[in-house]
């Protein structure tokens, strides 16, 4: 069902996108401000559900690639995504009728909204990842056989290139290389898909879920209310019933470089009802796994939400510090991410964890009675 995003809801979506990012995806503060500066407060931004897409619709995927840390200094000109979209449309000789985020987790949830507000295009309610992953092909679109084929990338200084490559994995490598050549951050428009093809490839309604989660966190008065409302929201979404894994304080934070990516781990010492329990979380750009002793209780692609209880907002991997009081939730990933082919890119083994993937619903109770 369609709706219109208001200015106030942009803030909800910004926070909700961080809640769904499993610790990665970049800060949404700047892009939220940018979206707020271009939104027409009377009209809002039109959102359509995948069910409303027709055969003649052509949906273009919009987003940013590169280093989230650099985005905090290298703030966009605001013209990048329009420039990229126009370059893409020109090469294809075809106009976009709607746009969509590639990944709902983090800053990329907001970038299509900026473009939608600037061009008056609708946004499709959904994405291809339901969280965030580092590469283009780690998505439901790839699984559904949607070949990206091409996209246009624009740098902050306005340089634009068009990349064409029928293989999603090779295209993903090209994008990463181009991003580095463009100064570490770039914006893209492309991977166009017909309305019909998208309706079977999309992970639906994740934009509305992020908006609702953000609203809950903004309006909650205390931690228990926030958690119980999160529980209800996730349970009625494409995700599933979340599992509270621990409540406690962060200690023992480790960070290091492995093959150019930031990896690390930290521990949480339980408090209150979880006194005596401990949880270890590992991450590589995003949270990957949670473990109680030798037993894994949550494995990628299931999401981990590390909620800072004081701010009622999620801790990103680079915000993890000793002494913060958090509640950790394991959130089931949508089923499409749990299929064999995608697990080979985003499952535990792909991330160097030698443990077969098992859904968090089945794992979360383990390790308690040791």
């Amino acid at each position, binding site marked *: 069902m369609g709706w219109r995003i208001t200015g106030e809801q942009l803030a909800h979506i910004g926070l909700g996108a961080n809640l769904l990012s499993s610790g990665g995806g970049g800060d949404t503060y700047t892009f939220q401000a940018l979206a707020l500066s271009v939104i027409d407060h009377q009209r809002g931004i039109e959102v359509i559900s995948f069910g409303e897409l027709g055969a003649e619709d052509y949906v273009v995927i919009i987003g940013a690639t590169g280093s*989230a840390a*650099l985005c*905090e200094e290298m703030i966009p000109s605001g013209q990048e995504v329009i420039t990229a979209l126009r370059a893409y449309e020109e090469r294809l000789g075809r106009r976009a009728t709607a746009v969509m985020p590639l990944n709902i987790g983090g800053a990329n949830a907001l970038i299509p909204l900026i473009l939608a507000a600037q061009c008056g295009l609708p946004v499709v309610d959904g994405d291809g990842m339901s969280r965030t992953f580092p590469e283009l092909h780690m998505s439901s679109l790839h699984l559904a056989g949607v070949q990206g084929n091409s996209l246009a990338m624009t740098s902050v200084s306005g340089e634009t290139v068009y990349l064409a490559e029928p293989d999603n994995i090779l295209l993903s490598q090209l994008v990463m290389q181009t991003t580095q050549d463009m100064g570490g951050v770039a914006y893209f428009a492309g991977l166009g898909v017909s309305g019909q093809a998208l309706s079977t490839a999309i992970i639906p309604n994740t934009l509305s879920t992020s908006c609702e989660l953000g609203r809950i966190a903004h309006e909650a008065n205390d931690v228990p209310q926030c958690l119980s409302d999160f529980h209800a929201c996730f349970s009625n979404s494409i995700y599933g019933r979340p599992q509270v894994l621990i409540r406690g304080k962060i200690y023992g934070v480790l*960070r290091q470089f492995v093959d150019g990516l930031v990896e690390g781990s930290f521990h949480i010492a339980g408090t209150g009802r979880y006194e005596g329990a401990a949880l270890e979380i590992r991450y590589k750009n995003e949270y990957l796994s949670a473990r109680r002793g030798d037993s894994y209780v949550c494995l990628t692609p299931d999401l981990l939400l590390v909620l800072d209880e004081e701010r009622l907002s999620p801790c990103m991997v680079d915000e993890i510090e000793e*002494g913060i*009081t958090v509640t950790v939730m394991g959130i089931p990933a949508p089923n499409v991410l749990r299929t064999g082919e995608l697990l080979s890119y985003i499952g535990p083994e792909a991330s160097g964890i030698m443990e077969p993937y098992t859904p968090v619903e089945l794992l979360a109770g383990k390790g308690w009675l040791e």
Partner: protein
Amino acid sequence: MSYRIGIDVGGTHTDAVIMDNNRQLVSKIKVPTTEDIGSGIKRAIAGLLTQSELDPREIQFAMLGTTHCTNAIVERRNLAKIGVVRIGAPASLAIPPFLNWPKELLDKVFVGSHIISGGHEFDGRRIAPLDEAALREMAAEWKGKVAAVAITSIFSPVDSGDEQRAQEIFREILGDDIHYSLSSEIGSIGLIERENATILNAALVHVARLMVRGFEESLAENGIRGARIFLGQNDGTLMTSDYALRFPVLTIASGPTNSIRGAAYLTDAKGALVLDVGGTTTDIGVLVQGFPRESSLVAQIGGVRTNFRMPDLLSFGLGGGTRIRGEGDTLTVGPDSVGYLLPEKGLVFGGTDLTATDIAVAKGLTELGDRGKLGSLSPQLVESAYATMIDLVEEAIDKMKTTSDDIPAIVVGGGSIILPDQLTGVSEVIRPLHFEVANAIGVTIAEVSGQVEKIYSLEEWGRDQALEEAKRLAAGEAEAAGASADSVEIVDIEEVPLAYLPGNAVRIRVKAVGQLTI
């Protein structure tokens, strides 16, 4: 013998001490903070000199931790009219300066703001050539209208060349009487937050003069003329008065840091909780390696987002003057307080308001005033009010601790007499001598520091060399700030790897501190 005088201006009291060059306390005083701040400072200095009977010429150092700048921003007073330029277009055009500033603060300071081309990428490559013509044009437009200019260039922590060139051009046209704030000298990576801090700094140029000149006058009027003057900054170290005139924004939030540092000095503790109980509120901080633990939250100053690292503090409404009302189910503790009027309004002092201090006297925690005046208090009321007070404290202690083990707590501040010797979660309650002026002691014994934050490519530098270089730069900064070279040590190294960048880029932040050269 030479002496140093240290003053800390708090919300309720201005505390001051004189210490000798062996860092032994000679004299201490507390006076009410005045609205203009300065006359309170003057009274405190005069009081100290009378008490100690020292020759004012023997005072060689004078240190001040003050709320001048915080108050000016919060109350929107004495702020300078400023011009703001950001260098980096076309990057960043989407978000102009003053993002989400409170309107009444913006209106007080705003003359003009422009984004022009120039600036750098993270690896030092140019975004675009610096638009010098645009700088000359805006300087002409601002001439006679601005007291200060805030200059921020994209990735200036990597290459500050454009900011310096812009300053030169402005100087040519606007002259030397205008203050220039360069973002590369004030903040770290994070454009919006660094720019905000730079704008605030420029807006504080008048306040900085009031603060430094006022302090010099207060000293001179009391016969202290030759002393070197320092101001406390938010990381618990000192800067010279010349430096404070250029970077007034760094004095913000120095107060809580001073009390934590003072508590550390008075007890020799390296790791502990510090509870600073004042007249109205209690601040709990955490002492790690002799310095306050810093907060991970974005620091808001007067509604403006900055990237200052503030001490991680938990404040709650319990102090010596906290008012207690009702009984049974209707009992409330605070959050309001009789403040510095406690010696008139508290029951034990013959007043009519029931305060936290009265409850502490009734419980026998402290001998103060006239116990006999508490006769009408029911024991149940005393017990339940006391239990509520302790709950507040213990809950806050639990929030601030990083581990479930009991740890020591140092209690300081005039109001700390209301706390008992046993608290849940605390292994030992330490009450140092001179606890009531710990903040003034903190600023008096403070060291001077230097800090650098840069992005290094580890492939290019190698980790060890990058760290060495950053340490060398930080030590150089500390010496430039007045530290004696042989006393400088590195106290903090933060290394944050940056994902998705070529060459294994790491953000390295190093802080060095050293003793004042005598």
